[in-house]
């Protein structure tokens, strides 16, 4: 297990995890991976809203943060099915699971989640301010929404990892993962949106929902990878 009484065990583990992180980032960028697909889907969702809602600029500004959050949430779910499936198809997943004896599988999953987030979800957060302009949002509201997305979207990836691990053996698990994961992401959505509103609408608080959002992310950073690791451990066949 991790934490054998060797000198530099921690340095070793971080070296290993850095190697995994860099590999997943490289794959994400090189294989025409999820980064661009997610951003384009996000753009498509946000760009269609004003056509549907109509040219009421005040209304657009008011629903802006919520629409940005929903768009980002759906785009997050889009690439989740490949998180473990690609590794399963080429046999890498077996070796990652076997590595459990040297370093916890949950840690491996956590690093894969972080790499997935940095490669596929961070671009959404970066694109969010630009798309906020489509929704006629004020600079303050745009800033607050981008900040809440930055803090909240990792939580979605962590829950998504658990869903992706459960559905890893299914050939077309993408939709199933979304259905499994969506109800669990609702708290993240609620607190993310209410913090975004809190920054602009005066009587509503910003800090409290924002801190709960941060707590959700930290909580799920443990629960998601641990449950995903369990599912992967028992899903090998």
């Amino acid at each position, binding site marked *: 297990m991790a934490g*054998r009484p060797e000198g530099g065990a921690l340095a*070793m583990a971080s*070296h*290993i995890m850095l*190697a*995994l992180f860099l*590999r997943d980032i*490289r*794959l994400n960028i*090189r*294989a025409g991976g999820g980064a661009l697909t997610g951003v384009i889907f996000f753009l498509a969702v946000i760009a269609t809203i004003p056509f549907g809602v109509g040219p009421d600029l005040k209304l657009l500004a008011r629903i802006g943060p919520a629409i940005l959050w929903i768009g980002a949430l759906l785009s997050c779910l889009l690439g989740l099915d490949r998180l473990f499936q690609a590794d399963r*198809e*080429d*046999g*890498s997943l*077996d*070796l*990652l*699971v*076997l*590595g*459990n*004896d*040297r370093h916890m599988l949950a840690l491996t999953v956590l690093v894969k989640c972080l790499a997935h987030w940095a490669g596929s979800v961070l671009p959404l957060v970066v694109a969010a301010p630009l798309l906020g302009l489509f929704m006629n949002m004020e600079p303050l509201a745009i800033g607050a929404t981008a900040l809440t997305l930055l803090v909240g979207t990792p939580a979605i990836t962590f829950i998504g990892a658990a869903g992706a691990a459960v559905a890893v053996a299914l050939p077309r698990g993408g939709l199933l993962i979304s259905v499994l994961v969506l109800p669990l992401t609702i708290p993240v959505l609620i607190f993310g949106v209410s913090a975004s509103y809190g920054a602009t609408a005066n009587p509503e608080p910003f800090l409290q929902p924002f801190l709960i959002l941060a707590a959700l992310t930290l909580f799920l950073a443990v629960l998601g990878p641990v449950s995903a690791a369990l599912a992967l451990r028992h899903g*090998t*066949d």
Partner: protein
Amino acid sequence: MRLIAENLGGERGGESVFSRVGFDLGEGQALVVTGPNGSGKSTLLRIIAGLLPVAEGRLLLEGGGEAFPSVASACHYLGHQNAMKPALSVVENLRFWRDFNGNGDVGVEEALEEVGLGGLGHLPFGYLSTGQRRRAAIAKLLVNHRPLWLLDEPTAGLDKVSEARFAGLMERHCGDGGMIVAATHLPLGIDGAELRMGI
């Protein structure tokens, strides 16, 4: 170090595939698992690696010491698939597995020379032919030292020359005190006990 299996049974999807399999493998020995399709060769290997639970009997690794407390930590598992990413170059793939499995013992270039892929390391893995891919996966066994090699049809797709070269690598591994369990229906060209499944 010894790998001992007693009355081992395996199942897939709740159905028994084989039962009462036993062997006792010591340092420098090889075990060649043969048998018809569906006799449970791959299942046996996956059970040994710890990817599938032991359905009955027991399996233990003796004398692994602190470095190799369990079979999973002492083994290299080479399955049907090569566990390499087509989008990354051969060297990048090997370097990742070397880092992921701990301290490398042999350089990546050196390992590629050993399997006859010297000079091809910069190519994306996806550009290689089937046999070359298998050889690159075999190079993965060399970059990190593990005493136990679990090989599932290791020579599938290899030509005669590569087969002979791989037999040499396996002999050297056994000569250094390593152990091999290989499931195959092709002659591997190594001396070892034979375990026939499915009879």
